[in-house]
């Protein structure tokens, strides 16, 4: 009896595709023969849009790329523009940017932990993860005024300083987050059904990862020790000590472990940064009020930062005018997703969904 291939569209509208991804899946019964991702449903071409605006007002397009880790997105763009236009940033602003980059990484990993639980059929971890994320969002709203699209970084520093009630809320969050994190982890870690669903599934060998130029937790779970914060430190990551969690498991369970350890490391960095916050100016006075408009830059510059999903880079080409000539965005989730076909051959439908959830793609960034 020749094989009956069932071609199913895990279409743009599906409960667990983390956004608008369409997977053209060829099924033989329950086993997946091939899964070809089709993207482009959330394509707004932020690169073309940012050619019509001033340097400072492109921030809102960068926010809406990876709408879960958006502080890191703004950071990548602003660092690239500052290097292009040669703007120096006061000391305190750099430390503040680092503090919120790490808090944003924790918030993004918490969203991943919640949605991974949902994809495997567990309902409760979503609520515990979002309860913790809510406290981080409150910290952001206290400082920048918004919960998701922060626009906290200005070119040349940050827009406003920490309010005085920030200190007490931050200490409170930092003190009881480790206990809550272990509680969330214990829901997954030793659970036999969870281990059965995640161990040995979605194998990504290091050579395939390197050839698909995959970065971030997905790469570190395949045993490659590569993190931009250590290899080419930007901001003050060389003045802070932290380790890079690595696992040689190459499967979903390894990616799960790497991300949870990364949250602990990010908290450790945030604590150290908070102690090292120097007093003083938080925004370069040249570009304070009406200086925002006349930022000019010629030549080209590419800056690499470590966003929660991998290496996020912005390549800006300036022609000396007040508007960028070309902005090119390197989005890590775009490459993490391109390796789905290799990782999923021969698995079951349930494993396809589990592997997709540990790749943690966000489609604002994949489709740009």
């Amino acid at each position, binding site marked *: 009896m020749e094989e009956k291939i069932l071609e199913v569209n895990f279409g743009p509208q599906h409960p667990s595709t983390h956004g608008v991804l369409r997977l053209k899946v060829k099924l033989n019964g329950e086993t997946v023969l091939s899964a070809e991702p089709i*993207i*482009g449903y959330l*394509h707004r*071409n932020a*690169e*073309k849009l940012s050619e019509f605006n001033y340097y400072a007002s492109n921030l809102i397009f960068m926010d809406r790329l990876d709408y879960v880790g958006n502080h890191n997105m703004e950071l990548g763009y602003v660092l690239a523009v500052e*290097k*292009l236009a040669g703007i120096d940033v006061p000391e305190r602003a750099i430390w503040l940017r680092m503090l919120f980059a790490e808090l944003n990484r924790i918030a993004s990993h918490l969203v991943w932990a919640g949605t991974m639980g949902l994809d495997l059929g567990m309902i409760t971890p979503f609520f515990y993860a979002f309860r913790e994320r809510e406290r981080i969002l409150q910290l952001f709203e206290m400082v920048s005024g918004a919960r998701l699209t922060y626009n906290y970084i200005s070119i040349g520093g940050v827009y406003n300083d920490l309010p005085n009630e920030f200190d007490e809320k931050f200490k409170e969050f930092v003190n009881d987050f480790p206990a809550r994190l272990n509680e969330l982890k214990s829901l997954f870690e030793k659970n036999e059904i969870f281990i059965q669903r995640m161990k040995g599934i979605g194998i990504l060998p290091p050579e*395939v990862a*390197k*050839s*698909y*130029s995959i970065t971030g937790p997905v790469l570190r779970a395949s045993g*490659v020790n*590569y993190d931009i914060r250590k*290899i*080419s430190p930007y901001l003050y990551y060389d003045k802070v000590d932290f380790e890079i969690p690595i696992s040689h498991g190459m499967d979903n369970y390894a990616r799960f472990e790497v991300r949870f350890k990364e949250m602990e490391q990010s908290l450790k960095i945030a604590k150290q940064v908070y102690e090292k916050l120097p007093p003083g100016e938080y925004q370069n006075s040249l570009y304070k009020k009406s200086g925002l408009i006349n930022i000019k830059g010629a*030549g*080209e*510059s*590419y*800056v*690499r930062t470590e966003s929660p999903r991998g*290496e996020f*880079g912005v*390549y800006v*080409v300036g022609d000396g005018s007040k508007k960028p*000539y*070309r902005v*090119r965005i*390197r989005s890590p989730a*775009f*490459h993490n997703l*391109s*390796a789905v076909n290799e990782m999923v051959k021969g698995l079951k439908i349930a494993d396809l969904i589990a592997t997709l959830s540990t790749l943690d793609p966000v489609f604002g960034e994949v*489709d*740009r």
Partner: protein
Amino acid sequence: MIIEEGVLKDGTKYILVEKSTLIEELNNLKNQGYDYLILMSAVDYKKYREVVYHLGSYNDNRKIVLKVRTEDDILQSSTPLWGAANWFEREIYDLMGIKFEGHPNLKRIFLPEGWHGHPLRKDYDMSKKQYVNMKEDGTDLVSFNPEDGW
């Protein structure tokens, strides 16, 4: 064959390469240890299109930029060297219109199949609106008059 060499503003070395010897240059760079294709981007300088390869390596922070210029928008594809080049080149073809010979399936990656023009070109006409709809058999129908749009 390297036409020009130099250092960029942010300190990274860059080389400008002949269009015909693109693949050999990429190949010996890869053998020199640049095994990580960070980014492939295309910039439209009106007279010519410039494709910029950012190469790095997974075990240290060396970085090099390789540029190649083309007027007639045809280049050799570097998919044999890196798997990532597959989606990079499809995106550059989709948004900038540069065809890569030897690419397994050079189709548009973001825009629907029948889209007219390549948006990231400087001469792309932004005023003409294109409407996308789905035909009976599920493929995309791109047209200029708004009636086909829903």
